[in-house]
C-alpha cells in the first residue's frame, strides 16, 4: 500500500510534468548560427606565453584559447582524462618519465600536419625548465626533474595548449575554431567619449579532428560593463555572458539561466615584503583577526561567495576545511593597542591598493577598511592608477588581489601562487602528497603575509536558445559542444577555408 501511494504520487507528478510537456519534443542538435559571447575583460591574448598565471585576463584568454587550440587531453567531469591530441600515455614507476602517443593526421588551421616538434616546442615553453620535453616515436617524452604524478592534471589545464608559432609571429592551432576577425576597442563614432568594445570572431573549423563544432561562428565581445552584459542577455544580444557576482541575484530575478562554476577566484589581501618586521607581525595578525569574511561573503556578496581561509579551495585540495580564520575583534584591538608609535595602521593609515579591476573588488577593499576600523586600525582603500596592470602587481603596501585558479593540480597551483605573489618563498618539489601540501600551505599562511578573504565562482548567463551547455565545474565552457536553437540572421556567410596566417596570436588589447 505504501508503495502504491508512492507510485501514485510519482505518477501524479509525472503526469503533471507530462501534461506540461505534451507536444514538446527532444530537439535534435542543430548546426549553424553565431554564438554571441560577452566577456568582462577588456583585452585577451591568444598567446599562452603572454599569460600571467592567476590573472583574470589570463582566465578569459584561456577560455578563448580552447576554441583555437587543443591540449594533449582533457579531464571530463568524472575524473577521467580523455584523449585529445594524445591518444595514449604511460609513465615509469617513479613518475618522472612520461610517454605520450600523439594522434596522427591532425591538421592545424592552415592545413599542415601537427608534428611532434610542435608539441615539444609548446610544452617545453609552458612546462618550464623542470621538465625536459623531447620528441619520441609517434609522440613525445617528458622527463621531469622530480617525480611528477600530477603531470596529467597540469597538462590538462592552464596554458599547456599545443600551439605552432610561425616565423612571422602567427600562431596556429588544431582547435575546433580559428580566428577570422579581430577588432580593437576604439572610440565610438556616435559618442566619442564612449568606447566601442573589442571583438573577436571565430569561425568553425570544418576539418577539425574532433568534429566540426555545431555553431558556424563564435563572436566574442570584450570589456563591456557588467550591467550592460546582463541587459544584452535579456534582450537577446548575447547568448552567453559572464555575470559579475554582484549581479547574479538580479539575473536570477530576471529569469535568466545562470550557471556557476566551483569557486574559481580567490580574493585575498597581500602584504608586501616591507611588512616583514616584528612590528608588522602584530599588524598582520590584528588585521587577520578583524576581518569578517562571513559577512563579506553572505551579505556584501549576497551569498554568491564563500568565506576563504586557505589558499587552495576545497574542490581542488580536498582539505581546505582544515583552515580556520576566526574573527576576534577584541584580540585585534589588544594587538593594535600594543603597536609602537608611528607604526602603519596606527596614526597613519595603511594604504590598501585594490589591484583587481571593477566595482566589486573596490567594494571589498572598502569593506576591509571598515572591518579594520572596528579594531582601531586605520586602513584606506584606493584604486591603482589607470595604467597599472590588473594582475597582482608587486608594489609596496597592502594589496587586495584576485587570483584565478587555472590548474587542476594543487601542487602546480600552489607553485604558481608562491612564484607570483610570494617571490621569496619556495616550495619543495615532489609534494603532490596532500598531507605535505597541507603543511606547506599552512606554513605559507602562518606569517599572515597573505590573508584569504572570499572565494568567488564564475557566473555565466546562458540564454534559453543555447543547448548542450556543459561547462566543467572548473570553468571550461566547452563552447564547441554548444548548439543554438534558431537561425541567426547575421550568419549568412558561407564558411571559408582557414588561411595559413588568418589570425595572429595578438588579440585586441594588451597582454593579460
Amino acid at each position, binding site marked *: 500500500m505504501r508503495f502504491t501511494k508512492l507510485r501514485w504520487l510519482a*505518477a501524479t507528478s509525472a503526469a503533471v510534468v507530462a501534461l506540461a510537456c505534451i507536444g514538446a519534443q527532444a530537439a535534435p542538435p542543430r548546426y549553424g548560427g553565431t554564438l554571441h559571447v560577452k566577456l568582462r575583460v577588456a583585452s585577451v591574448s591568444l598567446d599562452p606565453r603572454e599569460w600571467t598565471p592567476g590573472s583574470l585576463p589570463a582566465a578569459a584568454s584561456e577560455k578563448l584559447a580552447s576554441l583555437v587550440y587543443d591540449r594533449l587531453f582533457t579531464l571530463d567531469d568524472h575524473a577521467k582524462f580523455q*584523449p585529445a591530441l594524445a591518444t595514449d600515455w604511460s609513465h615509469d614507476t617513479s613518475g618522472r618519465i612520461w610517454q605520450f602517443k600523439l594522434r596522427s593526421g591532425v591538421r592545424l588551421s592552415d592545413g599542415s600536419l601537427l608534428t611532434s616538434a610542435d608539441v615539444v616546442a609548446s610544452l617545453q615553453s609552458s612546462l618550464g625548465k623542470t621538465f625536459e620535453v623531447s620528441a619520441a616515436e609517434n609522440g613525445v617524452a617528458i622527463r621531469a626533474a622530480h617525480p611528477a604524478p600530477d603531470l596529467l592534471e597540469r597538462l590538462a589545464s592552464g596554458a599547456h595548449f599545443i600551439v605552432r608559432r610561425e616565423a612571422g609571429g602567427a600562431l596556429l592551432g588544431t582547435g575546433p575554431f580559428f580566428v577570422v576577425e579581430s577588432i580593437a576597442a576604439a572610440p565610438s563614432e556616435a559618442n566619442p567619449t564612449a568606447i566601442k568594445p573589442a571583438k573577436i570572431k571565430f569561425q568553425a573549423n570544418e576539418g577539425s579532428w574532433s568534429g566540426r563544432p*555545431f555553431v558556424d561562428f563564435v563572436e566574442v565581445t570584450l570589456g563591456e560593463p557588467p550591467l550592460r552584459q546582463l541587459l544584452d542577455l535579456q534582450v537577446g544580444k548575447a547568448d552567453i555572458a559572464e555575470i559579475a557576482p554582484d549581479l547574479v541575484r538580479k539575473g536570477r530575478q530576471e529569469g535568466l539561466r545562470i550557471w556557476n562554476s566551483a569557486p574559481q577566484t580567490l580574493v585575498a589581501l597581500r602584504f608586501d615584503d616591507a611588512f616583514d618586521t616584528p612590528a608588522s607581525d602584530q599588524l598582520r595578525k590584528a588585521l587577520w583577526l578583524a576581518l569578517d569574511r562571513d559577512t563579506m561573503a553572505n551579505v556584501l556578496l549576497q551569498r554568491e561567495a564563500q568565506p576563504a581561509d586557505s589558499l587552495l579551495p576545497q574542490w581542488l585540495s*580536498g582539505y581546505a576545511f582544515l583552515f580556520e580564520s576566526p574573527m576576534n575583534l577584541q584580540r585585534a584591538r589588544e594587538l593594535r593597542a600594543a603597536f609602537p608609535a608611528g607604526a602603519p595602521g596606527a596614526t597613519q593609515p595603511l594604504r590598501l591598493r585594490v589591484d583587481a579591476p571593477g566595482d566589486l573588488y573596490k567594494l571589498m577593499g572598502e569593506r576591509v577598511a571598515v572591518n579594520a576600523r572596528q579594531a582601531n586600525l586605520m586602513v584606506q582603500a584606493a584604486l591603482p592608477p589607470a595604467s597599472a596592470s590588473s594582475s597582482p602587481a608587486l608594489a609596496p603596501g597592502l594589496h587586495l588581489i584576485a587570483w584565478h585558479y587555472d590548474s587542476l593540480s594543487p601542487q602546480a597551483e600552489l607553485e604558481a601562487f608562491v612564484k607570483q605573489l610570494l617571490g621569496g618563498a619556495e616550495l619543495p618539489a615532489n609534494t603532490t602528497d596532500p*598531507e605535505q601540501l597541507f603543511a606547506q600551505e599552512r606554513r605559507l599562511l602562518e606569517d599572515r603575509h597573505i590573508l584569504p578573504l572570499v572565494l568567488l565562482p564564475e557566473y555565466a548567463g546562458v540564454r534559453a536558445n543555447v543547448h548542450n551547455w556543459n561547462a566543467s565545474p572548473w570553468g571550461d565552457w566547452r563552447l564547441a559542444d554548444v548548439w543554438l536553437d534558431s537561425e541567426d540572421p547575421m550568419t549568412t556567410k558561407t564558411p571559408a577555408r582557414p588561411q595559413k596566417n588568418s589570425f595572429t596570436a595578438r588579440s585586441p588589447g594588451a597582454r593579460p
Partner: protein
Amino acid sequence: MQSFGKNHSKMVRAQFLFARVLLPLAVWAGISCFSRPALADGDVTLRETAQKLAERVSTIPGLHGVLRLEWHPDANWSEGESARWQEVLRGEFEKRTLSLTEDAGAPALDVFAAETPTQVVLTAKTRISERDEVRIVAVTRSLLPSGLPPVAPVRLGRQMIYQSADRILDASSLGNSEDEGLAILLYRNFEIVVLRVDLKSAVKETVSLHPANVKPSRDPRAELTMRGSSVWVLLPDRVCEFSWGAPGEVKCRAEKPPPADKFDWRGQTLLTSPCDGSSWKLLNSGSEPNAREVLQVVPDGVMQETSAAVLSEFPGPIVGTNGERNPSSALVIARNLRTGNYEIYKITLACGN
C-alpha cells in the same frame, strides 16, 4: 533500407525535479551478475587507500584509548558509496588496534572525504592534548569502483549488461534474443566503432568506421540496425554498412539528413507485458546532460492514465533506447553521472508488484 523508425508521436520531455525530491527513488534491484575486472580493481584501490590512511593515523603520537569515528562523506556520494567507505575504513582502523566506539563521550576521530576533479582526498583529524593532528591521503578517482546501480522497481526489471567508458551511441541485440550477444555502436577515441560482444561482455569483434572516412562528429545521434549478418549504421549524414567477419569492407554513402522537424530517430520503444500481452512504451524526459533521468514505462496510447506508470531513475541521462529485436525487453543506454561510464541496461516487464 530500413526506415528511421515509426513516425510516432514525439518523445515527451518532462522535468522531474519535484518527483526526485518526493520519491525514494533509490530502490535496489538485483545486482548484475557480471563480474567485471574493473569492479574488483576499484575495491582494491579503495581498500588500499583506507589502509594508507589508517597507517598514517596509527602513527599519531599520543593516540590511544577508544575513539569515536565521525564519518563525513562527500556531499555528492550516494548512501551506498558512503557506507562502503565507512565500512572499509572502520575495518582498517580496527586492524591497527585503534579502538572505535559509538560512545558520544569518547574523543572523536573525524574522517572527511572530499572529491577533487581527479582525486578523493581523505582527511583524518583528531585532537591530542590541545593540538590538532591531521593525516591526509588521496586516491585517483578513476581507480575507484563505480557506483552501484539502483534497483529498478519491482514491476520494471532492469539489469545492467554492459558498461563502457567510451560513449555508447546505440546497442542492439545480435539476434532475436539477447542470448546471442550485443552489437554496440560506440564512439571511441573520436572514431565510430561497432563491437560485437558476447554474453560475458567479451568483445568478439571490433569494426571501425574510420577507414571508411567517417569523420568524428559532435552529434551523438546514431542508430544500429541488424539485417541478418549485415550491420547498418545510420548517422545524421550518412549510412554505413558492413558484415560481421569482413570488418575491412565497410561501405558508407552520404545521405542527406531529413529536415529536423520531420526527422525522427527510432520512435517509441515498446515492450510487451508478459502478464497480459499489452503494449507499453518507454518514455524518457530528455533532460540536460548533467541530470539524472527517470524512465517512465506507460501503457501505449495512454497519456493521461498514469496509475499504471512505473518509473526507474537512471544514474544519468538516457542517451538511447532500442527494443525492436525483442518485444519483451528493451535496451536502455544511459550515462552514469558518477563514473562517467555509459551503461546498457536490459529492461523487462515483470508481473506483480
